[in-house]
């Protein structure tokens, strides 16, 4: 389905391996900024998830009796790993990453038939499964101590955390000093009696948290710009997703600024920009026609805002993307472009009467 509506004369690189290599390159600013603010735990996430991705893909391909080498060369398992690793809280335990990557690569991707056959975004399947299964470990985001500061985790502490069994390590003593809420999380749990201005004035977060998240979002935006420049993604999905978020956030902010975040707050905190450019644009699980991409992105934006404002989770990119993945066949069906030479596009459900067929 992924190549259904793409132009035959596009200038983008067509070899999957090269597309994925550019994609990996575009994640570098985001990952570097995350590491700069949140420490080496980000790198351990990304490296472990990438390695598990390759290993699990090779294992399943072997079980399925497919050729291993050429498929691995398309780098898609590595990309899934890097994207999942970048979404996880820094310094996530090895075991959680393994469980997430099994869900992503083995279940969401290979059980459905491999790259190009998966109806759901593999990285987000892994993330959603981890978030539902291990809520305590998955919501403990590191405080922005910075890469070089002594307050952060030392290499030894990081190793102990990463290799620790299951989620037990994440609730041990000392974790309060090391971890900190994300801005979205903190704002979600703001007491109702407190106005937003008073809440932010009370310094609810460790120093520099908001700035760190803003820098991370801008770094992902830079990576996304590279993807757009190389024409690896269309502008439709990121634009419509961020616009929908902005419109909804702007509306509630205009009505009641003391209890709702501004559009800028919603764009620059959490996974909004990352999701818009790197997750929602997955060519396999996203809508394919141009108009369909607009609907698809807008749907994700609306769902993200609905869950952030009214749901139980502070951020919702994974859930929103998975929910919209369900609607992709429907969207594609109703947004098929007009075929050259046809007066009208061939879309919607056709009812063919029996006598029509006999007559023709």
């Amino acid at each position: 389905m992924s190549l259904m509506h793409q132009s035959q004369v596009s200038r983008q690189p067509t070899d999957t391996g090269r597309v994925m290599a550019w994609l990996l390159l575009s994640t570098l600013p985001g990952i570097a900024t995350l590491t700069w603010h949140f420490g080496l735990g980000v790198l351990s996430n990304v490296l472990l998830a990438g390695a598990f991705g390759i290993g699990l893909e090779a294992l399943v391909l072997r079980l399925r009796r497919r050729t291993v080498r050429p498929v691995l060369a398309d780098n898609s398992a590595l990309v899934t790993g890097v994207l999942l690793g970048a979404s996880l809280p820094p310094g996530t335990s090895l075991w959680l990453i393994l469980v997430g990557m099994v869900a992503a690569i083995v279940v969401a991707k290979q059980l459905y038939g491999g790259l190009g056959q998966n109806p759901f975004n593999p990285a987000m399947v892994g993330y959603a499964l981890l978030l539902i299964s291990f809520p305590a470990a998955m919501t403990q985001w590191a405080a922005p101590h910075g890469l070089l500061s002594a307050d952060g985790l030392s290499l030894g502490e990081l190793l102990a955390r990463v290799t620790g069994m299951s989620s037990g390590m994440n609730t041990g003593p000392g974790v309060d000093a090391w971890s900190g809420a994300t801005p979205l999380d903190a704002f979600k749990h703001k007491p109702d009696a407190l106005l937003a201005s008073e809440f932010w004035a009370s310094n609810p977060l460790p120093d520099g948290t908001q700035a760190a998240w803003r820098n991370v979002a801008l770094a992902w935006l830079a990576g996304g710009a590279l993807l757009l420049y190389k024409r690896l993604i269309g502008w439709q999905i990121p634009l419509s997703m961020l616009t929908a978020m902005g419109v909804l956030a702007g509306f509630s902010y205009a009505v009641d600024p003391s209890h709702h975040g501004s559009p800028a707050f919603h764009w620059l905190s959490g996974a909004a920009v990352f999701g818009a450019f790197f997750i929602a644009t997955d060519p396999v699980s996203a809508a394919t026609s141009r108009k369909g991409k607009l609907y698809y992105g807008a749907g994700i934006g609306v769902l993200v805002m609905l869950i952030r404002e009214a749901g139980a989770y502070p951020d919702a990119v994974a859930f929103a993307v998975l929910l919209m993945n369900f609607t992709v066949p429907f969207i594609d069906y109703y947004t098929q472009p007009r075929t050259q030479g046809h007066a009208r596009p061939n879309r919607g459900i056709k009812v063919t009467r029996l006598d029509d067929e006999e007559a023709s």
Partner: protein
Amino acid sequence: MSQFNELARNGLWSNNPALVQLLGLCPLLAVSGSVVNALGLGLATLLVLVGSNVSVSLIRHHVPETVRLPAFVMIIAAFVTCADLLMQAYTYQLHQILGIFIPLIVTNCAILGRADGFAAKNPLLPAATDGLMMGLGFAAVLVVLGAVRELFGQGTLFTQMDLLFGPIAANWGITVFPHYDFLFLVLPPGAFFATGLLIALKNLIDDRKARLRATQQPNSPTENRRVRVTGTIR
């Protein structure tokens, strides 16, 4: 005797209500969180299935074709009420845990399916055997699913069995993995996932057996594939 073997094989394996016919998925997915829940509901379903098959077979010549389904549903509902009251009397706590899923046995398609598809066309003894074997097959899948989800979801096995077997079973519970929980398997999505894996496992075993048979006798008969089943019935 071969007919009874055939019925047993169908109910337990090759036409298993849960793994092949995919009937009664609602209770299968909802109540298979632990062994004791699964066993409780499996036994209740077994009881209803045998009772309804026997009664339907007994009255099969007296029910007009046009009203047979309402009549069968009434019979099933009567047996479900019996099971409900029995559980309320003897295993009250388990009855509270299983809640709405005991009355919902009425809507379990496996039971109406066997009543209309088998018991209404067969004499008493085969109908009773069919009910027993189908019920056992369903209960077995439930228990396996419950064990898998309890073991890999909470790290325990056979906890709270005293709800079903009384004080004797108070310490049957085993903690296999201490300080372990994997919420996904405890929640309903995990049930879908585990059921899918069980079906895949069954098909894998069937495949292996078929391949073994094919190497032994080169002229294999053509397969008869039925609609909406996950296996092949030979």
